[in-house]
């Protein structure tokens, strides 16, 4: 029963967990390690599953906590590397073939310039499609702060896109 639940409800979330860990750590190997650790810890706590309201959000929170712990341990990453988020070399980019390269460069740059909280809120909402309530739980952040951070992050991205369109900056 537990095994079946794991394979139908928890294991399929691993890509989300990976992207979130990658956003937090900026390193594919560390992100993979964190995902493994989350899956193992989640399995080991299978007795608690009936008490968890939202297993996916619970896994995301665990991913966040383990990523933060790992980040503290590996302080040798520069702020620039850690902030770079998802690296460029992973997948061939159909997107880059379709739009001007300067857009991608400017989006990456703008994302790197965002404060950590704004970056994480935006990631959880715009890439993972989490609700405000889930983001609030995962990041342990009040609901109004979630909305404010998302608003500011999107405003900054909008300005960047419009500047790129006007001036190609």
């Amino acid at each position, binding site marked *: 029963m537990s*095994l079946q639940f*794991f*394979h139908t409800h928890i*294991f399929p979330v*691993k*890509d989300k*967990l*990976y*992207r979130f860990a*990658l956003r937090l750590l900026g390193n594919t190997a560390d*992100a*993979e390690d964190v*995902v*493994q650790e989350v*899956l*193992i810890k989640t*399995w080991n706590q299978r007795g608690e599953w009936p008490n968890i309201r939202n297993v996916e959000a619970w896994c995301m929170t665990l991913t966040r906590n383990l990523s933060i712990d790992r980040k503290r341990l590996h302080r040798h990453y520069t702020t620039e590397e850690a902030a770079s988020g*998802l690296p460029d070399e*992973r*997948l061939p*980019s*159909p*997107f880059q073939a*379709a*739009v*001007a390269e300067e*857009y*991608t460069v400017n*989006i990456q740059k703008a994302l790197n310039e965002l404060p950590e909280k704004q970056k994480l809120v935006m990631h959880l*909402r*715009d*890439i993972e*499609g989490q*609700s405000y309530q889930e983001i609030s739980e995962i990041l342990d952040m009040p609901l109004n702060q979630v*909305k404010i951070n*998302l*608003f500011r992050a*999107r*405003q900054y*991205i*909008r300005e960047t*896109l*419009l500047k*790129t*369109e006007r001036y190609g900056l």
Partner: protein
Amino acid sequence: MDYKLIRDLLDKYFQGNTSLEEETQLAAFFRQNTQMPDDIKAYAAWFGYLREQRAVKSSAPAPRMVTPAPARPFWIAIKTISRIAAVLLIGFGGFRLFSPRSQEINTEKTAAIDWSKYEAETPEEAFRLTSKALKRTSAELNRGAARAVEKVFNVKEQQ
């Protein structure tokens, strides 16, 4: 194409007021359309970037403890069963050979003797048989004691 709806949704989106459904609608619009007014096209790069990020996948396999064990080949199962059967057979054979068989034989021998032939039929006969048995016992004991005394004297003489 109703671009006004898209423009309104984009404004709402950048104000942080869209629902998840509306955001899905925007993502679908930018995925399905390449031709659009320039003011909307400026945002296509952003939604393309988000789409690209959603495609990133982990290569992590399921942890070993949650991977079901592969089915054992038939011949391995047969081999295991044979081993268990051999051990059980040897154990059962040993048990039958050494433990209760001797008792069964004694019981059979005992059962074959008809003890009723040796029982006394009158009190006088019982008295006679008992006296005879006691006399024989006494004689054996006396003979044993005399031999022991004789041995002790022999040892003293040799000293």
